[in-house]
Structure formats: C-alpha cells, structure tokens
C-alpha cells in the first residue's frame, strides 16, 4: 500500500485509458504523456499498460507501507529520486519529490502496478467525465498489485526537453477557415494559458479566423485535434478530450508530438508546423 501524504498540485492514477467507448460518450483518458508511463512501467518490469501515478508539477510525498521497486519517467524532477532507473524504496519510507526541471507531468510506476478498482476496464481518472478514481488527496491509499515478470532494464537515460514544436496535419475542417489558415497558425508562436488541463492545452495568440459562419454538426474528435472555438484561440486536445464536439478542427497534432503537448506548462511558448 502507498499512502499519499501530499499529492502536489494535481495527481491522478493513470493507465492507458478506455479506448473503444467514444460512441457511448466515454473519453479515452489515460496517461497524457503515454510513452512516459510506458517507459516507467518497463523500468520496473511491469507490462506497459499497468496503472501508475501521473504527477502534475511534481511535489508529491508518498509513504510506502511496503517496500517496492519504483521508477520515474516524463518531466524530470529536481530532487527526491533518480529519473529513468528503477530504485528501491524500503518499507515505511517516505518519497519526497521536488518540482520538475522542465515539463509538467511525471510518471511514477511501482512494480506490480497501482491496483485501485478499475472502471470500464481502466484505472484512469477521467477529469472530464468523472469516471475512475478521484484525484489523489492527502490520505488516499493506493493498493499495489503482485509483480509480474522480471526487471530487465536498469537504466533508460532520460531524454532532454524536446523543442515546443507541434507538427500538424491539416483537417478535417481546415476548409472552415480563411484560405491559408493552417499556414497562418504556424506563422507565429502561441502561449499556453493557465486553464490548460488534461482535456486540452489552451493557447493564446493570433486569432485563427473562420471563413464560414454557422454551426458545425457535432462530430467525433481525435486526440491531438486543434479545435478552434468562436474566440479563435486554439485548443489542443489531450487524453480527457470530449469524444464529440461542434467546433471545427483546423488540424491534428501528429501522434508522436502529443506527448510534447502534454508536457507544456502554462506560460510556455509553442509553435505549430506543417513540415515533417
């Protein structure tokens, strides 16, 4: 059992979410930076999809009632534990984690995985629909599962920050915007705003101007969609995005760059590009 002494600014249990239920109104959810959760799991010998803890801005304190192998990946923390290598936490010890040096979301995997009760096949907290466990609070107890498999990797050097550039494919609704709008979106940087969350990265910058008035009938939305509400300020959809929506999507961030978007902090500058 792991006891949450302090969750930091925001922390949730996340696995790889609930794919396949969008037609029933269920967001996919799951780790916002999924490759980092997968890496943390691999480091402790877990299957990649086991549940771990997604920390936002680090700063968590966790007491381990039982000894465990633990690994951290994603946004590297300034203090408290090594990144990218499994480490042993003795029974009764408290892990005190600092803030990230860069990035926003850090993943903690424990050998055996976090075994809170699954909902619709997943242990992820879906911040949009409320499915899954509540966000972590002081006093939350996280059960740990039985270890499966062996620890084989002992070091995965953590990558440095990737440039805040998101490659997009235009569409599906680029024709709702003025001609050349996708190129215009890429011409100048945008700033990540404070109200960004697991649903989406909300941006402030040059207005994306629509060519068509009226309402788009509701349609399915994909991960990484750059949706443009009437304000003209784009939103990049992350893991908890609504499965359907009625604002036009000018472009979609390439799958490999969604984790880059998930690590952007409020105040960061980000650019879009049509290249690559």
């Amino acid at each position, binding site marked *: 059992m792991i006891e949450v002494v302090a969750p930091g600014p925001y922390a949730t249990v996340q696995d790889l979410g609930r794919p396949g239920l969008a*037609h*029933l109104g269920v967001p996919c959810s799951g780790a916002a930076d999924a490759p980092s959760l997968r890496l943390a799991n691999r480091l402790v010998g877990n299957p990649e999809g086991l549940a771990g803890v997604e920390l936002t801005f680090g700063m968590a304190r966790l007491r381990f009632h039982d000894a465990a192998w633990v690994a951290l990946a994603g946004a590297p923390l300034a203090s408290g534990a090594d990144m990218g290598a499994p480490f042993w936490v003795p029974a009764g010890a408290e892990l005190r984690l600092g803030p990230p040096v860069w990035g926003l979301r850090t993943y903690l995997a424990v050998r055996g995985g976090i075994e809170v009760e699954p909902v619709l096949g997943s242990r992820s907290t879906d911040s949009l629909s409320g499915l899954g466990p509540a966000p972590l609070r002081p006093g939350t107890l996280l059960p740990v599962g039985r270890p499966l498999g062996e620890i084989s990797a002992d070091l995965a050097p953590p990558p440095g920050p990737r440039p805040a550039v998101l490659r997009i494919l235009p*569409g599906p609704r680029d024709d709702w915007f003025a001609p050349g709008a996708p190129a215009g979106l890429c011409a100048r940087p945008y700033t990540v705003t404070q109200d960004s969350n697991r649903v989406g990265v909300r941006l402030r910058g040059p207005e994306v101007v629509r060519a068509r008035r009226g309402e788009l009938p509701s349609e399915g939305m994909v991960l990484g969609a750059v949706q443009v509400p009437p304000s003209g300020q784009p939103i990049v959809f992350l893991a908890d995005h609504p499965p359907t929506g009625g604002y036009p999507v000018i472009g979609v961030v390439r799958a490999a760059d969604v984790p880059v978007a998930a690590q952007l902090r409020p105040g960061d500058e980000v650019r879009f590009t049509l290249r690559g």
Partner: protein
Amino acid sequence: MIRTAGEHGLLVETGSLEASHRLDAALRAERPEEVVEIVPGPETVLVVAPGADRERLRARLSSLTDQVREGAGMTDGPVVTIPVVYDGADLESVAGLAGLPVEEVIARHTGRELVVGWLGFAPGFAYLTGLDPVLHMPRLDTPRTSVPAGSVAVAGPYSAVYPAASPGGWRLLGRTSTPVWDVSADPPSLFRPGMRVRFEPA
C-alpha cells in the same frame, strides 16, 4: 467525402444521420482490423485506426459509404420503452412555450418513436432525435448546477435522459427509474446509436 483527421483518423461524411447509423452498423458487423473507435455523428462517422493501411481503409470506407447512402432506414431493431413520471420542474413552462396543455405535452412526448442519434456531453448521454417539433425548445438561459440522474428532458430538437447527476441546461419534463448508464453492465449504456426509443407514462 472522406476527410483526414490526423494520422490515425478518417472522418467519413455520410450526409445524413440515417446513413451514419447504417455505416456504423456495417463497420461494427465487420470491423476492419486496427479500428479502435467508430463514432457516428449527425452527418459523419469518425473511424480511428492506428497502424491501419490508410489507403485500404479509405477505399473500404468509401465503398461502404456508397452502399449505405442508398440503403433503407434501420427499422428492424428492438424498441426500448422508457417509463416516465411526468412531474418535471419545467413541464409547466414547456407547456406554456408550446401553447399546449400539460396533458398534450405528455401525449406529444410519448406519441412518437425516437431514434438515438449519437452520444456525447457525458458517458451514456444520448441525443434522441425525431422529437415532435412542437416540443423543440431553447435551452434554459441559466443551466442548473445539478440535474438528477434519470431526468427526462428536452432541448433544441432533442430529448434525453440524464445518465448521471450533472449540471444541465435542458428543460425537465419528468424522470424515469430505468437506469440508462451502468458501468458494471456490458455495454454500460442502454442507448446505442441507431436504437429506437419510446417514452410512455409510468
């Protein structure tokens, strides 16, 4: 027309809700490999298939769409009956806006077979289409902070049953004790796109 929705998604324009439902049913009956999500909407079906051969999938979707455009409506499925206690907080005001007595509002709401258009807004929240035009209502100016689960409501051209307690701006006609959303059930939602629904007085 089939639009690109990122590296993994294709957005098929079907032109109508009926064609969306037929394409959805055809895809679910014979799901192409790698397809993870099939999301019907009023005029589209989104297909998400990471790792699929996109050109093959595009060709497949294109020929299926041609077939379903010409097909007949899906009228062979079962009809789900939802018993309703008509005592909603907005029943009187809906009657006032419609210019009808309350009994007639109930008769109009129960008088037609509705079709589940699509789900969204919340897990299990179905937009039920085919509502009598006299019951088409604007949303409340100020949404309620909490609408109880099981509330039966109307807004715009749609009716709905709130699957769980949530904030909401729809006008409440009544309530049902039939659960429409249960995470321990498979599937968790009573309503699926294309399904026919009839309300009846409890």
